[in-house]
C-alpha cells in the first residue's frame, strides 16, 4: 500500500511502501510539480531503488529549472537506503 498526497501549502506527503509496483504512481504525481517543493517522508515505511529513481528524476528535472527540493522526516531505514545509494549527497535532507 502506497499513498501520495499534495497538501494545500504544496508539501508532498508520502505514506506506506514505495516499491517497484508503486513507482509509477509516485512519478505521475511528482511529474505535475514545477516549483520548489518539500516532501514529507514521515509516513513512508519503505523505499527501494525504484523509488530512488523517481526522486533522482525529480531532482534532476527541478534542478534544470532552478527549483529546490527538500526531503524531511525520513525514518532510519529509508535514510540508510539514500545513503547507501550516495543520494544523501544530492538532496537537502532534514
Amino acid at each position, binding site marked *: 500500500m502506497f499513498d501520495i498526497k499534495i497538501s494545500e501549502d504544496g508539501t508532498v506527503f508520502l505514506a506506506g511502501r514505495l516499491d517497484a509496483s508503486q513507482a509509477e504512481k509516485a512519478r505521475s504525481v511528482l511529474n505535475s510539480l514545477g516549483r520548489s517543493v518539500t516532501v514529507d517522508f514521515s509516513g513512508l515505511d519503505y523505499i527501494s531503488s525504484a523509488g*530512488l529513481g523517481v526522486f533522482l528524476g525529480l531532482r534532476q528535472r527541478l534542478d534544470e529549472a532552478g527549483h529546490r527540493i527538500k526531503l524531511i522526516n525520513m525514518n532510519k531505514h529509508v535514510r540508510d537506503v539514500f545513503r547507501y545509494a550516495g543520494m544523501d549527497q544530492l538532496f537537502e535532507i532534514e
Partner: protein
Amino acid sequence: MKKKFRKHMVSLADVFDFMKEFMVLNGIDDSSAYAINLAVEEIFTNFVKYGTKSDSEISVDLLKEADKLTVQIVDLDAEEFDVTAFPKADTDLPLKDRKIGGLGIHLVRQMMDEVKYEYKDQNSKITLVKYLGR
C-alpha cells in the same frame, strides 16, 4: 519456507506478505527484515525485467539458521543472465550524470553479506546471505 510466484510485477505484494510472515515467525529484527525485503525485491524485479517473456514462476526460499539468514530466489524458466553482474553503480557522480541503472544491485551488495549467482537447467538462482544483528 518456500513459495512460488508468478513472474510479474503484480506479484510483489504477495512476495512481501510471504516475507513478512517469515520475519514474524522467526523474530527477525526490523533492520535485517528491511534489508532482506529490499534485496528480494531488487532481484525479483530484475528477473521480471530481464528474464524470458514466458509467464513462468519465480520461487523464493527463506531459511534461518542461528544468526544466518539465507534466501534463494530462482527464476524457473530463464536464459543465462547474471543480474548481479551489472557494472558497479558510480554513487559519486554529480547530479546531472547520475543514472538509476545498476543501483538496485548496488544496494543488494551493500545490504547483504553474500550474493551468488548460479545457472543450471534453465534455472537462474541468486543466493543471498544476511548475518543477523550485524
